[in-house]
């Protein structure tokens, strides 16, 4: 687990505060302090009180129907969610200040930083912890949304009803989209940005760390509400929730409307945080033109969130009012207008798609530049185009309404702005192609997803141009052509960039390297199955298959079956990713601070970073993409407790790659052979190896010979072998911790034969270290092993003596 080590806690900013850092036992009863237990009872209490008060007021005002499930759901869910955030502890600090608690301490950082895995389940103010909390929670929602999609595809695999009645089916795809959009893509970028952006800026945290924590915890009740709607009647008007269908819809629609409010509040709070952080907390020397493009992207995205999200809040408020209070916003018989809903809804929901894409563009800029070792081509134009997309994004909403019956004159201006927005997007694509041209392209998993993104996103963008053209849109609106488009840009676009970002920053976040082979497998499985699933949908749409249907013309059956199979393989590919993440996080090789040799600030601190990020404020002296420019530096970073001087070969992290690649790397490093048995885990052995590793890259082969101890004692061979394996594992672990590439095995030959085997192999060592027990106890030395090896091999041989205590009678 990524437990960060505070390099020097007393150097925490502003001097020593209060009772210092977390890690101590929490005080007070679990029922009364900020915790899951308290969250559960406080949230239920708030809900019951709210429902109670609402019912009492209805009775007092003389309503005929004193208890209404709609009213109860509205107030109950709202206050349940608020109660949850109160109970889990988001408001404890502010409340303590407000009521003047005697033990309230200002800025004690007691809830800052992850000192144990438990900290990830509590309110924590460290942006790195919050970032990982976001990424794990949103990934869980990704799996849930994906499961719903598999339900949809299972139903659609054949014409007729398979597993879902039409009502349930409508609920399945509605929840699928809602969860993917509000609980996966948008907050995923928030989480990744949360972890990376403050580091990239040279800051110690976000501007409002407690607000940051609240933003995360607001997401939890929103997600639970969407899923809980399946326990009443699921909301079934699509994620777009058009009136009048939504107003007439079942109780689940209220769950949706309220869940959206909380997801929106979370989003807006995060965006305000990002904006203030980026504007006020850049390191000295970091002008806007020296910011990494991911920061530009978050700047534009956050502006869109702050300005746009209130419109979806308003639209859902109005739906709620129409449902609960029977107002007439969208009710034609009361003077309301049905199309009004669509205008208000899409005024947010179009910028929402840029909210879901711009951070991904930022990630792609980072990944392409670093993994092809080249500056970004046309940095300023990419920055401009990012802002342009943000601004233009507010002028195109009605292209979702071309056939809605809105004022006809609006259609052509909307088509014009929609076509124009293709230009800044195209600028980015061409700039990215130019970035990798003449680079040195390393096909890491992150890079594969970035390159795959270029392919699939362009397809999505092109189908978008088709849809911008009014007559084509009139024909293809609400058909599977649109479903194809949205999945090419949302999965082939956003999700691919999320994967690229996760792989790229995995070492930084967890302190471990992921498995490259599994990453490659994940990419190819995903890429192929994705295209198999969504490419045919273009044709289906043109042939007239509408969207959001549980059933279709029988002649589409075969293609739908193929699509469903593709969809199931796509789902399975996620499992490969999950396995890679979990196993690498738990026991992957430790990652160096900068495995990609990147220039931006997050890579200049350890992996994972220290709790307060930087010991001193960095000084930015240049741009962040100056690869290939000799002596170029982005920033000067001062570290108070430098890492020990152990040379870590850059490519040690790539040693789990293809065999021939590995050979090439290893042959460029000095090969040291270590021969030891009883003493193999001794300190002197490790020290001898590290001495050599300190001056140049080394690669170590450890051989533990079991045969011919030379003293004739009878020993239990299996037990001895097991003990030898365990000692070997100890040494290899110690070497891994020191960042030294090493491998080893227990062999049954005697030590002299074992050395010769190595020396005469295809990869002979250039130095040998033989470690033995002291002369009085060593069978090897009784047989003059060291001299014989020196004579025979003519290689430098170091003899290390280790006095290992003798627990068993099998000593030699």
């Amino acid at each position, binding site marked *: 687990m990524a437990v960060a080590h505070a390099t020097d806690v007393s150097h925490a*900013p*502003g001097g020593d505060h209060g009772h210092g850092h977390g890690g101590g036992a929490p005080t007070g009863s679990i029922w009364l302090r900020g915790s899951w237990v308290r969250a559960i009872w406080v949230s239920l209490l708030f809900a019951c009180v709210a429902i109670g008060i609402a019912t009492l007021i209805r009775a007092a005002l003389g309503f005929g129907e004193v208890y209404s499930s709609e009213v109860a759901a509205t107030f109950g869910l709202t206050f349940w969610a608020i109660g949850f955030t109160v109970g889990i502890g988001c408001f404890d600090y502010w409340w303590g200040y*407000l009521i003047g608690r005697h033990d309230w301490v*200002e*800025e004690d950082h007691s809830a800052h930083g992850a000192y144990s895995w438990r900290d990830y389940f509590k309110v924590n103010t460290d942006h790195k912890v919050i970032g990982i909390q976001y990424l794990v929670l949103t990934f869980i929602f990704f799996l849930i949304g994906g499961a719903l999609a598999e339900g949809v595809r299972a139903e659609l695999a054949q014409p007729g009803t398979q597993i879902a009645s039409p009502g349930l089916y409508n609920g399945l795809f509605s929840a699928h989209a809602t969860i993917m959009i509000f609980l996966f893509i948008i907050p995923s970028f928030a989480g990744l940005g949360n972890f990376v952006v403050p580091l990239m800026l*040279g*800051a*110690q*945290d*976000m*501007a*409002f*760390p407690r*607000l940051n924590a609240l933003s995360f915890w607001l997401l939890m009740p929103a997600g639970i509400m969407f899923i809980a709607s399946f326990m009443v009647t699921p909301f079934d008007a699509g994620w777009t929730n058009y009136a009048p269908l939504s107003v007439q819809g079942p109780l689940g629609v209220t769950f949706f409307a309220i869940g959206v409010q909380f997801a929106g509040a979370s989003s*807006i709070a995060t*965006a*305000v*945080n990002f*904006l*203030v*952080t980026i*504007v*006020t*907390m850049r*390191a*000295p020397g970091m002008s806007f033109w020296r910011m990494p493009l991911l920061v530009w992207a978050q700047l534009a995205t956050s502006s869109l969130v*702050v*300005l*746009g*999200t*209130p*419109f979806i*809040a*308003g*639209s859902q*408020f*109005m739906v709620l*009012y*129409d449902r609960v*209070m*029977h*107002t*007439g*916003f969208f*009710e034609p018989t*009361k*003077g*309301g*207008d049905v199309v*009004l809903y669509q*205008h*208000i809804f899409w*005024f947010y929901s179009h910028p929402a798609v840029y909210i879901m894409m711009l951070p991904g563009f930022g990630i792609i800029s980072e990944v392409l530049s670093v993994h092809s070792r080249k500056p970004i081509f046309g940095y300023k134009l990419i920055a401009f185009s990012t802002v342009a997309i943000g601004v233009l994004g507010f002028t195109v909403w009605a292209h979702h309404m071309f056939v809605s019956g809105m*004022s006809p004159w609006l259609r052509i201006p909307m088509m014009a702005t929609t076509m124009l927005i293709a230009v800044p997007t195209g600028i980015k694509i061409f700039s990215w192609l130019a970035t990798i041209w003449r680079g040195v392209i390393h096909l890491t998993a992150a890079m594969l997803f970035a390159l795959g993104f270029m392919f699939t996103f362009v397809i999505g963008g092109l189908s978008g141009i088709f849809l911008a053209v009014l007559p084509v849109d009139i024909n293809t609106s609400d058909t599977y052509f649109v479903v194809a488009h949205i999945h090419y840009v949302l999965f082939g676009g956003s999700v691919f960039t999320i994967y690229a970002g996760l792989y790229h920053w995995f070492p930084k976040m967890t302190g471990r390297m992921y498995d490259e082979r599994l990453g490659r497998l994940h990419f190819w499985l995903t890429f192929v199955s994705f295209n198999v699933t969504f490419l045919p949908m273009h044709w289906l749409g043109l042939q007239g298959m509408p969207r959001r249907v549980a059933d279709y013309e029988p002649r589409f059956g075969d293609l739908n079956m193929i699509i469903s199979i593709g969809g199931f393989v796509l789902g399975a590919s996620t499992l490969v990713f999950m396995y890679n993440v979990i196993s690498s996080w738990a026991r992957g090789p430790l990652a160096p601070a900068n495995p990609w040799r990147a220039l931006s600030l997050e890579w200049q601190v350890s992996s994972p970073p220290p709790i307060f990020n930087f010991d001193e*404020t960095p000084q930015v002296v240049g741009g962040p993409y100056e690869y290939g420019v000799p002596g170029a530096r982005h920033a000067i970073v001062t570290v108070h407790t430098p890492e020990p001087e152990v040379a870590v070969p850059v490519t040690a992290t790539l040693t789990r790659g293809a065999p021939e690649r590995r050979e090439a790397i290893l042959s460029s490093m000095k090969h040291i052979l270590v021969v030891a048995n009883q003493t193999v885990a001794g300190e002197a052995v490790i020290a001898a190896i590290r001495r050599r590793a300190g001056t140049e890259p080394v690669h170590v082969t450890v051989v533990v010979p079991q045969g011919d101890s030379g003293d004739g004692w009878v020993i239990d061979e299996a037990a001895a072998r097991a003990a030898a394996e365990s000692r070997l594992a100890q040494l290899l672990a110690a070497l891994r911790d020191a960042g030294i590439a090493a491998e080893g095995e227990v062999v049954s030959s005697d030590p002299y034969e074992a050395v010769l085997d190595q020396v005469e192999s295809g990869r002979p060592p250039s130095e040998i270290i033989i470690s033995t027990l002291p002369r009085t106890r060593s069978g090897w030395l009784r047989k003059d092993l060291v001299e014989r090896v020196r004579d025979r091999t003519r290689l430098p041989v170091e003899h290390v003596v280790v006095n290992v205590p003798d627990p068993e009678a099998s000593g030699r």
Partner: protein
Amino acid sequence: MSAHAATAGGRVQSEPASAYHESLLRSPVFLGMVMFIGSEIMLFASFFTAFFYLRFVHDTYPYGGEFEIPKGPTGINTAILVFSSFTMHWALVSIKRNRRFGLVAGLALTLVLGLTFLGLQMREYHALGFVPSDGAFPSTFFALTGLHGMHVFVGATLLFIAFVRAARGHYSAAHHIGLEVTGLYWHFVDVVWILLYTVVYLI
């Protein structure tokens, strides 16, 4: 919300007290409130959009008959709210000159005026004679004025907190960012009301 909070995450960018006034927009807390108010403006904008659309774009206005709204009494209420912005300004100016009396009195007056506004608005609601479910215009009317009323309530809460802190002497000429932020929010509430009154009641 003392200056500590302002520099909590902004250790890197903390400025000396003497540069306080020029750097208001560089204060993270103030900037954060500006952006939050930006999002609130957009929330009101969505309801104003509904109002404008149903009134001018949709062709069945005024459905359900003319709905009488009390321009006069609400005009007086508007004056009360506008006056409260002046008392708020008085409080802020006072603290910048370290005059405690002006600070506390200004805050108290602003709070009283704000609550008066709310009280009078609720009385008007009672006397209106129509309810939200009567039609499109009542729906937008109650939605807009109700949303505004909630914001006045939040503003009153902020004022109350500021008042208590002012009485306890938390503020000084150099450190009163919490007051600036409260003042900004209150002015926002006032400006929205002026817009609302003009658009809904007068036009």
